[in-house]
């Protein structure tokens, strides 16, 4: 099975390299734009979630995949970003400004409501900036740590941050959560988007966000900072000896990784129309980490595939499975074993492809130095390594 997948992989690579990259990019873009017209609204809804998860997975990929810092508490940044959206775009602070509310370039619906209502773009930027700050703050104590120790501290942060939000009800409204949250709009006085009843517009918003993040991610990977991350991942001591500032490099990884989590978190807060502490559990960190690992750590496209695959299984495929037993006349409820099926899927994926669906070329080399040397794929793999260098 592994061999078959491997063959498929190398065939894919061959096909891929036969066509220039920009053609592929255009094909994917065209497909992505035409997508809503081709699918049911259930699938579209699941896809919008996938897009948001892609952003998170790409953010985590910067920390885990590029810089090699294992992070088990990514949910903290989802939480922080979502709460920024909740604070700046809802009725939560209803008493502010004597009950009149504060409105900055906001939409037609929100401008008459009490509470703070800022323009969606401002909130997105604020959320990303605020989470970046927290990413650096939470990252700072871990600078001395490596490997699993790092994982444990981040896990602890992931447990603490949501509990703190939960216990300070003034800022979070406790388990009741902040609901409803302002809908997305861009121009002042505009009618806001009408999701969840109309999904296409919000799909395009999410798509633009993903494209932006993909662009930033690629540029970062090929930048001086990106090469510094990879150097730190490979060998901290050597990297430091070559003049890389370890503290700065690592903090940037945390900050940017966190910023993407907050960026996507703010979007999800308005898309799901709630900021509720129930969402911010350890399981979510694991969920995003699984996307990164299953897709192939460090490989941007692999991570995208991982994010789409896992969120689709979670939100669409398992739901579709529910109907099967009834349709063939069985009295068996699939929902009772969904959780187990999901676990089984994780195990199978990893046993069949331990390096993820699309391992990054450099990682392949690291993991199989001897094996790759006489592997036919080595030439291709070497090619991918070069890709990491800046392009002219």
């Amino acid at each position, binding site marked *: 099975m592994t061999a078959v997948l491997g063959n498929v992989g190398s065939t894919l690579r061959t096909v891929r390299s036969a066509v220039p990259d920009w053609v592929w990019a255009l094909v994917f873009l065209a497909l992505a734009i035409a997508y809503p017209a081709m699918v049911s609204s259930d699938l579209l809804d699941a896809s919008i979630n996938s897009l948001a998860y892609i952003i998170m997975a790409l953010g985590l990929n910067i920390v885990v995949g590029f810089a090699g810092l294992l992070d088990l508490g990514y949910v903290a940044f989802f939480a922080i970003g979502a709460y920024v959206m909740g604070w700046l775009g809802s009725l939560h602070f209803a008493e502010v400004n004597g009950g009149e509310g504060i409105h900055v370039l906001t939409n037609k619906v929100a401008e008459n409501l009490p509470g703070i209502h800022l323009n969606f773009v401002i909130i997105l930027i604020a959320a990303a900036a605020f989470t970046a700050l927290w990413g650096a703050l939470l990252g700072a*104590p871990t600078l001395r740590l490596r490997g699993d120790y790092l994982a444990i501290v981040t896990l602890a942060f992931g*447990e603490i941050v949501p509990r703190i939000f939960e216990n300070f009800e003034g800022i979070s409204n406790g388990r009741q959560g902040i609901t409803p949250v302002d809908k997305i709009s861009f121009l002042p006085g505009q009618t806001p988007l009408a999701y969840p009843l109309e999904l296409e517009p919000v799909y395009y918003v999410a798509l633009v966000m993903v494209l932006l993040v993909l662009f930033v991610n690629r540029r970062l990977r090929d930048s001086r900072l990106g090469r510094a991350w990879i150097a730190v991942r490979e060998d901290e001591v050597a990297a430091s000896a070559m003049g890389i500032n370890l503290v700065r490099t690592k903090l940037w990884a945390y900050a940017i990784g966190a910023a993407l989590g907050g960026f996507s978190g703010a979007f999800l807060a308005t898309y799901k129309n709630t900021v509720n502490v129930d969402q911010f559990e350890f399981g979510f960190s694991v969920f995003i980490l*699984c996307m990164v690992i299953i897709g192939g750590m460090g490989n941007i496209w692999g991570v995208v595939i991982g994010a789409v695959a896992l969120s689709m299984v979670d939100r669409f495929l398992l739901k579709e499975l529910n109907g099967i037993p009834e349709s063939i006349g069985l009295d068996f409820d699939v929902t009772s074993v969904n959780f187990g099926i999901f676990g089984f899927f994780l195990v199978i994926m990893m046993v069949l492809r331990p390096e993820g669906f699309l391992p990054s070329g450099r990682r392949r080399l690291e993991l199989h130095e001897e094996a790759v040397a006489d592997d036919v794929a080595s030439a291709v793999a070497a090619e991918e390594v070069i890709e990491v260098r800046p392009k002219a």
Partner: protein
Amino acid sequence: MEAASLPETGPASRTPGRSAGDFVLDNILWVILGGALVFFLATDFTQTLVDIKTGLSNGTIWALIALGYTLVYGIIELINFAHGEVFMIGSFVAVSVWQTFEVSAASSLLVIVGSMAVGLGAAMLVSGSLNVMIERVAYRPLRGAPKLAPLITAIGMSFILQNVGLLWRGTPDSTPDLIRSQKEVFTLLDVTIVRSDIFAVAVTVPLLVALLWFVGSTRYGKAMRATAQDPDAARLMGIDVDRTIGLTFLLGGLLAGAAGMIYALYNGTIQFNQGFTAGLIAFTAAVMGGIGNLKGAVAGGLIIGVIQALGDTHAGGRWTPVIVFGVLILIMVFRPQGLFGEETREG
């Protein structure tokens, strides 16, 4: 991983060049923890003694689970996320045994003692073999794979086992109160010692002694330690590494099963999601004691128990998890090798 499960290794060897400042930082945690304890004892002596007692007896269970984490981590550097679920299954097995034979506190002493022994044996056996099976299915195929791959399969196994637990007992179930767990035995310095306190200690201590003896003094234990130090060298020395790793999982599982049985009797209720939290706490305990260090794991379990009890009393239950994980972060930052661990490469 040189610090792995070596109970008799000497004192911590300091890396050259560590400054006096680092030394203070290393020990500041002891000062904070000890200072807090002294402060609480001074302000409310009896209440704090009660908390310490509650914490220690709760902590014995964390200690048993923590040993499983630390054993496995020591030998293959894997955080076995499914371990908490193995513990949960152990609880379920023990309670099922008692429910099947319909023993209750009203049964005769002989029946109670007998069924407790059978429950303990069954829980340990099932948990032990389950852990071995998990290793075979989910971890062994991934040896040599990237380090994070087994982490994901571990999480996957944990989901599967939780689902098993959910199907088995969807709602919380109560345990027959075989030992009349909250019956007072004696009072010392105004602290009431109840039966379950004694029970938890009475089952845990022999298991710990046996484990330390096994790892420290038997051929198998030696093989485990050798494998932990360097699997390749161990293989060259004629040690069957696969078998040794399997044995380690078996030991961890046996202890988790025992912890499951104690948990059921001690607390009186069991729930399918008890494993996840217990696993997280026990894992924290293992880290606190210096992961890979057996005695450290036990001490870590006990300390966490006491921190939890003090947290419940002084800050309220809703803050306790924050305090526990806060202490964990402090330890990781100031003493990454754990309170009792040796310096490691990782530190």
